[in-house]
């Protein structure tokens, strides 16, 4: 098997997909989080500022989902096939809410009536909350494993099997982490009364996140032993959860000092470290079968051919700097506090 820097092609592609999904979660995470807080802002002006804070960037953030999905399809066709068809209903709901959310953002500002705006505000916020929960629920099920049987075909229930306690816990943890992340983003973008209110909301958000994260971690350690195997066997790996905990602890410290740009960096790092933990726990398995380990979908049995992966790795090596450059360019263009004018949402 061909390797680059001692890593085989499927492992390299696993890293590419992981990188794309962390990028996606960090980016869409803050605009989902901002949306989840939306109904907590009572005044019309506050809601408009909050909406316009994500206005120029949320669409670009979703591009990362398209590319991440494409990378999964291209590199691990078997996983793409088994997982997407297994989680048919959750994925369809995800599509429903992601389009509904976009429609709400657009429709809201087009008419001045209070009932009109309030209705779309509800739609926008509920979509943002549901999308965050759904991402967490999917992750929770991947961590636990699902009923993959013969021919790598899912044999469990369509929806309620996925809404198990652990998945819901991961869902809530994801939502609260996004809310912390989103509140910090909004603090960077707002001033005045809304800013003061957000300081208070961020504190609440952090408490909720810490509690749900602690419960989920405890549950994982006690009831899902396979997820800590790698860490017990390779003590050096322990540095990753350590870094995750340290960066979580750093968020309230920085928030207290009102250093929100650093706080945002650390909430982003938290997401990356948590996803790296997930990657270490799973590798080389991508989707665990709860029926029989022979049906596990791994990076090796799911991978595209060497030839195909080689071409894609070459493309990524050329393309990644372009995508990163574009993202930095857009965020630099729109840095600073939101100013409303007649052209805003």
């Amino acid at each position, binding site marked *: 098997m061909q390797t680059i820097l001692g890593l085989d092609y499927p492992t390299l592609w696993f890293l590419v997909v992981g990188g794309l999904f962390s990028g996606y979660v960090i980016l869409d995470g803050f605009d989902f989080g901002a949306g989840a807080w939306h109904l907590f802002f009572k005044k019309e002006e506050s809601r408009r500022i909050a909406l316009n804070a994500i206005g120029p960037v949320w669409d670009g953030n979703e591009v990362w989902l398209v590319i991440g*999905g*494409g990378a999964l*399809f*291209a590199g691990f066709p078997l996983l*793409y096939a088994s997982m997407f068809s297994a989680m048919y209903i959750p994925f369809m709901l995800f599509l429903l809410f992601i389009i509904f959310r976009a429609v709400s953002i*657009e429709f809201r500002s087009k008419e001045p009536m209070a009932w009109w705006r309030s209705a779309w505000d509800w739609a926008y916020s509920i979509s943002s909350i549901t999308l965050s929960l759904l991402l967490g629920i999917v992750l929770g099920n991947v961590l636990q494993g699902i009923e993959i049987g013969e021919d790598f075909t899912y044999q469990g229930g*369509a929806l309620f099997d996925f809404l198990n306690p652990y998945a819901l816990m991961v869902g809530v943890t994801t939502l609260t982490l996004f809310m912390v992340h989103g509140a910090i983003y909004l603090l960077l973008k707002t001033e005045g009364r809304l800013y003061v209110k957000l300081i208070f909301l961020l504190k609440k958000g952090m408490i909720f996140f810490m509690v749900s994260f602690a419960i989920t971690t405890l549950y994982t350690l006690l009831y899902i032993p396979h997820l800590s195997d790698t860490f017990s066997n390779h003590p050096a790996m322990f540095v990753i959860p350590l870094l995750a905990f340290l960066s979580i602890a750093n968020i309230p410290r920085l928030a207290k000092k009102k250093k929100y740009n650093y706080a945002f960096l650390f909430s982003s790092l938290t997401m990356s470290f948590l996803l790296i933990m997930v990657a270490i726990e799973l590798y080389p398995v991508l989707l665990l079968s709860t029926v029989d380990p022979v049906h596990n979908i791994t990076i090796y049995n799911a991978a595209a051919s060497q030839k195909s992966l080689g071409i894609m790795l070459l493309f990524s090596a050329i393309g990644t700097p372009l995508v990163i450059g574009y993202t930095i360019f857009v965020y630099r263009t729109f840095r600073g506090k939101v100013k409303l004018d007649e052209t805003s949402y």
Partner: protein
Amino acid sequence: MDVEILSRIQFAFTIAFHYIYPPLSIGLGLIMVIFESLYIRTGNKEYETLAKFWTRIFALTFGIGVATGIVMEFEFGTNWATYSRYVGDVFGSALAAEGIFAFALESGFLGVLLFGWNRVKPWVHLVATCGVFFGSMFSAVWIVIANSWQQTPAGYHIVGEGLMARAEITDFWAMVFNPSSMERLSHVWLGAFLSGAFLVLSVHAYYLIKGRYTEISKKAFKIALVVALVFSLGQLFTGHKSADGVAHNQPAKLAALEGHFEKEAPADMYIFGWVDKESESVTGLSIPGGLSFLLHQDFEAPVTGLNAFPEDERPSQVNAVFQFYHLMVAIGMALIALSLLGAFYWWRGILFDQKWLMGLFVFATLLPQIANQAGWFAAEMGRQPWVVYGLLKTSDALSKSVTANQVLFSLIMFFFIYLLLFVLFIYLLNKKIKHGPYDESEIEDHPNQQGMAEALTN
């Protein structure tokens, strides 16, 4: 209804809806490049106004195109799991290339295109516009290559057996230049240019009828008319090349397009007609031996008919394929006629006095849209029962774990959400058209959020 038919209906519905938008983005991209180049060459501010106006409408179609595109990507995995596993290795590199090169090019330059009017020099802005336009054309390249590979597979070998069999790539360039990809790509591109040109013709014909923005609309109308004329005539060639290719590569599809049943016999070419599958006959107006002549320049040359193929290896919906194909061809001819008529009156110098013709052009924007849809329905239904021609049947390509009720649920869901999305599109499009091309102050004073707001209509 079973999973297969529901999944096919859902895929057809979601992709047909999606396909309203990308051709418009590509077509409007071309028009924007032309307007902006003219502005730089002539320094005439009117061309700049036109370029800005059409950029705002472009932003709308682009946004909805992205949102509905995510759905298509997901559906490969959710509804067509076996297909995804089968083709993943071959499509992988094409998809990666699209994501990285086409998408990065498009979205990278989109920011400058929408908000950069006053931040960069005009020629830098033109480069950005070209970047977005070429990016959208590249997207079409990779998608059409992938679809063409399903029509005429090349550059692969089959690995594994039974349910676990899959195609693996052996030769990247043979996959890219598979026998049908280039002729189909040119046909798709020209179809996209026509949908853009006819939208521009429609909107400016509307202004001319209403007597608003007259001078600027005359300029825009003439430019779009040239585009429409060139590419509607060009479509004759790409269409003919495609039909030749189908005859060579997919004889069963060709036979269905003309409702030709007899094994080896001279084939007629129908202007219109109705296929009766039971009696294996077509009722309608035809040029006897026309198809034979078109393919072999000989009215007597035999053409392989549907009966040369086993029942389960040829399209079953022959009449539907026939009708879609003939609808597309008829519209293609109508577009040529309209463009020629416009050119004729222009030459006579009385183009804008023909109110009735302007009225026709207002509604003609629907024609390329219908032709694009009909052409794809003919191409995709004509490929049945195969999803990958000669290799994988549509009925085998499904997700094994998905039930009919699940698909019914999502189908109803998509129906309502797309209805909402379509209402939004029409509402915003109408608002922008009513508002007119002049929007200088808004754009120039507040380049940032206005532009994005326009882009975010998905």
